[in-house]
């Protein structure tokens, strides 16, 4: 049965284009369109789509408010179509926080330079988000759910186990649903968090600066978009810039960050495996990697390398994941030391190093 899509955008032109692109795929069917947030809310309630594509800037009711309303009344996976402007990036992050599952840049050539490839990526993303599993997960926005439950009992991390760990570096990797998850985790860390942190989030180039700014604002620790030459520092998190790759390099005895362009073989920009593999080379056995929610399997091979030298891998649990892809990949490969609910990760990290 085809995935049923509701297309929301105040531009008739864009609505028709998106519908045209989506309808190519037999597994997708555009069942309705809305030209503002209010219409989106009412049509969602009426038509019960499997997935909604949502614009941000609309009259009467904007996209973010619509996301909130929809998640409150008739929750549904929502894919934001965001403009890659600075304003757009901020709105996107707000939308994700409001409960949208994922986002794609509105400008097709930001998705991929090849128009046809961009269009099929779009179809793929919509389809994946609209899958049954996705819908269930979207029922309750991650944040709300985890705050209300005091202690999730999936796999509680034993504090004794944690305090035995003495990593020198923390790496957090994420994809779909990552922005919100990372925000949740990092905001729980104190300013004097003893480890340097590397963040690898699948995100387009125009969005990572805003994301870093936002995290920096909200977190006690410092967060910035990684730059060439940055030195690892405790209590500072470096976010891999979208469109590039972040690796570690050693200059003399100093370990610092290198930012480089992508190779053909690297499927994501930034690619988690790339970062992890470079980390494995320079800091064998000394890394704690946390693999959070996300589609695909990026991070598995890097984790494999890390495991060889005795580093630790945690994976987010299925229940709290927006999309249980990346964590599943590492878990299924037997590489995970601990499966943790999103609500517990922050706490566990604080307990590290005694």
């Amino acid at each position, binding site marked *: 049965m085809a995935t049923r899509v509701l297309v929301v955008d*105040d*531009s*008739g*032109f864009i609505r028709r284009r998106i519908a045209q692109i989506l309808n190519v795929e037999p597994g997708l069917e555009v069942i309705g369109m809305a030209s*503002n947030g209010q219409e989106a809310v009412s049509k969602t309630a009426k038509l019960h789509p499997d997935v909604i594509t949502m614009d941000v800037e609309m009259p009467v009711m904007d996209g973010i408010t619509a996301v909130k309303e929809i998640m409150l009344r008739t929750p549904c996976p929502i894919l934001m179509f965001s403009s890659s402007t*600075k304003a757009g990036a901020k709105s996107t992050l707000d939308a994700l926080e409001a409960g949208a599952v994922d986002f794609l840049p509105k400008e097709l050539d930001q998705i991929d330079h090849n128009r046809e490839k961009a269009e099929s990526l779009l179809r793929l993303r919509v389809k994946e988000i609209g899958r049954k599993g996705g819908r269930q997960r979207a029922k309750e926005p991650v944040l709300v759910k985890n705050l209300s439950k005091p202690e999730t009992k999936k796999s509680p991390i034993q504090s004794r186990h944690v305090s035995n760990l003495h990593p020198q570096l923390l790496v957090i990797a994420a994809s779909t649903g990552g922005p919100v998850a990372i925000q949740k985790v990092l905001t729980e860390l104190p300013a004097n968090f003893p480890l340097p942190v590397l963040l690898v989030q699948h995100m387009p180039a125009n969005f990572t600066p805003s994301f870093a700014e936002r995290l920096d604002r909200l977190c006690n620790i410092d967060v910035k978009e990684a730059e060439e030459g940055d030195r690892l520092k405790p209590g500072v998190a470096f976010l891999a810039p979208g469109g590039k790759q972040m690796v570690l390099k050693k200059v003399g005895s100093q370990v610092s960050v290198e930012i480089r362009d992508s190779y053909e073989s690297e499927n994501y920009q930034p690619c988690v495996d790339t970062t992890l593999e470079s980390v494995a080379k320079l800091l064998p056995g000394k890394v704690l990697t946390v693999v959070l929610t996300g589609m695909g399997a990026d991070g598995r091979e890097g984790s494999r390398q890390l495991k060889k030298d005795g580093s630790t891998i945690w994976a987010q649990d299925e229940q709290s994941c927006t999309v249980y892809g990346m964590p599943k990949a590492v878990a299924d490969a037997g590489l995970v030391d601990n499966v943790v609910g999103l609500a517990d990760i922050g706490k566990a990290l604080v307990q590290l190093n005694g």
Partner: protein
Amino acid sequence: MSIDLDDEILQDFLVEAGEIVELLGEQLVELEQSPEDYDLLNAIFRGFHTVKGGAGFLAIDPLVNLCHAAEDVFDVLRKGERKVNSSLMDVILQVVDIVNDMMALVRSGEMPEAADEELIRTIRTYAKPESEDEKEGAIEAEEEKATATTTTQASSEDPVEKDFEAMLAAAQAEDNVSKPVAESDDITEDEFEDLLDTLHGKGGAPKGEKKSETSVVKEPASGDITEDEFEDLLDQMHGKGKFGSATPTPTPVSEDESESKPASKIKEKAPKVEPEVSKPVKEPVPAVNKKAPAEKKAATPPPAETSIRVDTQRLDDIMNMVGELVLVRNRLERLKAQIDNENVSEAIANLDVVTADLQFAVMKTRMQPIKKVFGRFPRVIRDMARAMKKEINLELVGEETDLDKNLVEALADPLVHLVRNSADHGIEMPDDREAAGKPRVGRVILTASQEGDHIELTIEDDGKGMNADFLRTKVIEKGLMEAEAAARLSDKECYNLIFMPGFSTKDVISDVSGRGVGMDVVKTRISQMNGIVEVDSIEGKGSRIIIKVPLTLAIMPTLMVGMEGQFFAFPLASVVEILDLDLDKTNTIDGREVVIVRDQALPLVHLKRWLVNGFYQGDEPVKGHVVVVAIGSQHIGFVVDQLVGQEEVVIKPLGAKLEEVKGLAGATITGDGKIALILDVPGLMKSYAA
């Protein structure tokens, strides 16, 4: 990506984006009046955002970049991080003009070029919060040094040219004379010479972008030049300023935000006609009041998907067919009388009703609200008022009035010219108004209404009005009328002299070809629509121009007359009355025959002599039917033999072979199957009247 006009997707974009951009123009002018209106700022933001999005989809990068820059400005504005001011508005209005130009290019299948880098940079400075302004150095060089003395030739940095271009672009690219910033209405000879020098770059036309006329201007008779003469001069010099959107050259705006000068930047850069004096410039604030039911200020929803695109040619064809149907119905009407059959009569009566409905319905498909044309005026007035340092309030009434699409398009230029005229010649400078006991802010009221089978448009101002004697003198001066005839003109007739060909232009040698402005051209255009235009005025109080055009061009009610078995049709709209007169009591004044009716002299024309073969010299009829026709404010009586009656006819063009024949607007088939020629009365008068 190239522009493929056949591409439905492209057309889809053009329709939607076109409407948004049109609306943006209006919204921006509104914004100047309510600069803090959050909803308006948001709507404008979304406007640029949406056009950007669509353009991005089609990879029309220049348009994307420009809209992106504008969008960023409005994001900052709507967040309250910056306030709207006039310089910002000027820049944004420029952006809209360039967006319009780019879209025009796209519509013709061309990819536009990127907007000027400098302009983008300028826009970007406005896209930062105000608090960051000091950090920016003066982005633009101090080009305000451009005075009348320095002429920069053949470089796109010519600020003078750019000013004029910007002004002209602002005053609507199509036609339009724009005035440069004149410090005062009167200019001395020297300043005038300087001006000429500057604009002509001492012999060189800049970059060949515009073809300036090497105007040969007569030395003004007196030391002072009047407004009209100055304007005409500029008409010529700006010649065919068709501001090719290919390389828009924007006006660089100096970034002196930190020195809060509300000064009009355009003013400063115009050729200094007076020595540079920093005046505290009071910004004229044109207000736009829409009396018509105000639409919600927030952007209207995008075009519903319940409409389809139809080629206007198809509608024209349908209109033609309906026309044929009307003619057949007319025939049946006539035959009805002959066939004394109740059923047939009833059927024909039915047909009559249905045909009328169909006619009306088809007419409506081609109708558009005049709002489409009215929409530009706030901007035109705003720019003019700013440039001329006048304060003008534009009121629009009856925007929703529908008229035929052809008419809307045909009226656009004349209306703009007339409105410009009111603002320019009618409304006085604020100080003068105050001295005359009037409010500083002048009013220009543009009204549209449907009056039965025609549309009435009025442009009214409360300016200084016209002086009948001054006009009288002028018409004699120009040799357009004999002194005696002029002396006999009523005041109203004097006012309407402005429509006389040759009245307004001064130039001897060169023609303002390509521009086609001038009151006489306005009148011609309106006559071509079977409409009439006239003006009335009260000196000191104001003027009013009234235009009447028929609702539709294709089907027209007429008065059918006959002479010697031939039939002619008068457009009923221009028929004032029909008289039966004793024609032996005629007088001759100025070589023309007149008859006295109600103490007024009515010029007579024996139509038979003009139009019917073999009757060019006729005996004076003793009694006759006289059809009194109004041409402007003049009445003329046409003597005809037979009055047939009123009939609604379908205007058929005469065809190429008969195009040369003057005085005829077309032909039609009468109800009894004969051919009747439809008269074009102004044309008749022009050709046949001595």
